[in-house]
């Protein structure tokens, strides 16, 4: 892919790592530091128990089930997508 000429833009908050073949080893080090930094963030997050996660999912589904048209079905009279054919009484 051709590199685009850079346009004037406001400074971006996350640096875009540029791959320069000259600075390969210091680039590797920088990447390694970023990777460890990211892993530190991810290791420190609070995790909830699977039992709680499961209960919350089940509760959400049951609370909203009756308002879920695809789950409950839609009466023909309430279905804007259903073609309404006139009833002819013969």
């Amino acid at each position, binding site marked *: 892919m051709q590199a685009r000429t850079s346009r004037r833009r406001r400074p971006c908050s996350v640096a875009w790592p540029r791959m320069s073949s000259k600075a390969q080893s210091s680039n590797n080090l920088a990447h*390694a530091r970023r990777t460890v930094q990211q*892993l530190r963030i*991810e290791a420190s997050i609070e*995790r909830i*128990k*699977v039992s709680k*996660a499961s209960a919350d999912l089940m509760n959400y*589904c049951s609370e909203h089930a009756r308002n879920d048209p*695809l789950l409950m079905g839609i009466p023909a009279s309430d279905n804007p*997508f259903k073609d309404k054919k006139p009833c002819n009484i013969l």
Partner: protein
Amino acid sequence: MGEMEQLRKEADSLKDQITAARKAVQDTTLQEAVAEIPAVGRVQLKTRKTLRGHLAKIYAMHWGADSTLCVSASQDGKLIVWDSISTNKVNAIPLKSSWVMTCAYAPSGNLVACGGLDNMCSIYNLKGKDGNVKVMRELAAHTGYLSCCRFLSDTEIITSSGDCTCVLWDIETGTQKTVFAGHQGDCMSLAVSPDFKFFISGACDFTAKLWDIREEQCRQTFGGHESDINAIGVRMRKISPALLHQSSMQACFPHHFSFFQFFPNGNAVITGSDDATCKLHDLRADQDLLTYQDSSIMCGVTSLAPSLSGRLILAGYDDFNVNIWDTLKSERVGVLAGHDNRVSCIGVSSDGMACCTGSWDSFLKIWN
């Protein structure tokens, strides 16, 4: 010990910590937790409308917030805005580049966006004064194809790209507000959380990342797994753009996320993959809870959408069908068969009343 060696050791130790922390919260499985609840009965949806008008493969569709209008993008070089109830074409927008891979509808209904192999995200104003739909902005800075875009509002849009980054744009000035870098492979897809605070990006490096939009930070990585220090400088094989567009759109890698959506409460993500499975990944427990698979399904998942309550997952596959899954019991409860080619995109309207499928057969179908 050199710094590099120290970093490698620390990385390994942190990865072990993460693995242990995930195990530590496994006091049960979702399968056990749902054992007592009744399964969903058979779900049978019918094609209510067929939207005809595209002349080539449809690659993407997105519902408008009003649950009536939707936009689709096709290899025929057009964006079409449809009234899904009347099947009328509200707008047929010719594109400068026919190599379109994604489209999006702004929540306000005022704007639509698209992009693809032109590396740009083009924003169109549907409500221009003279009634003509014109390009409002061309967001150009990505050095790779645009795989996905989603509006946060009329002034902000997030894009994912084959250049391995995602970007938050200021639409008015056409500039990048934030570049989300960290993936080691082409970013293939993105989904915004229901509260608009987070988004998830999936990439060809077999991982998905959860990003905090305002904190500009990656909070979690899951999937393949985390970036490997030993793999510095080794980019995943770049996909030839022409090949990507003509063939499977999902690249040549097994197990990578082709598509995902947030579960409606924002606490979980449903992912679909080339390996024919979908998975439910809980963000707060930081692990997969369920897999949706069947030995008879051997083709890749192209797209998926949850129903309004999240109890159903509608997933489009390479075999031209949509399979409907009971999210909690991981059983298949329905099939939508009607397309003559791959189902490339699927969406459930925001009021949950209808599901729209788009296909390489050039048609969109509305089901409920």
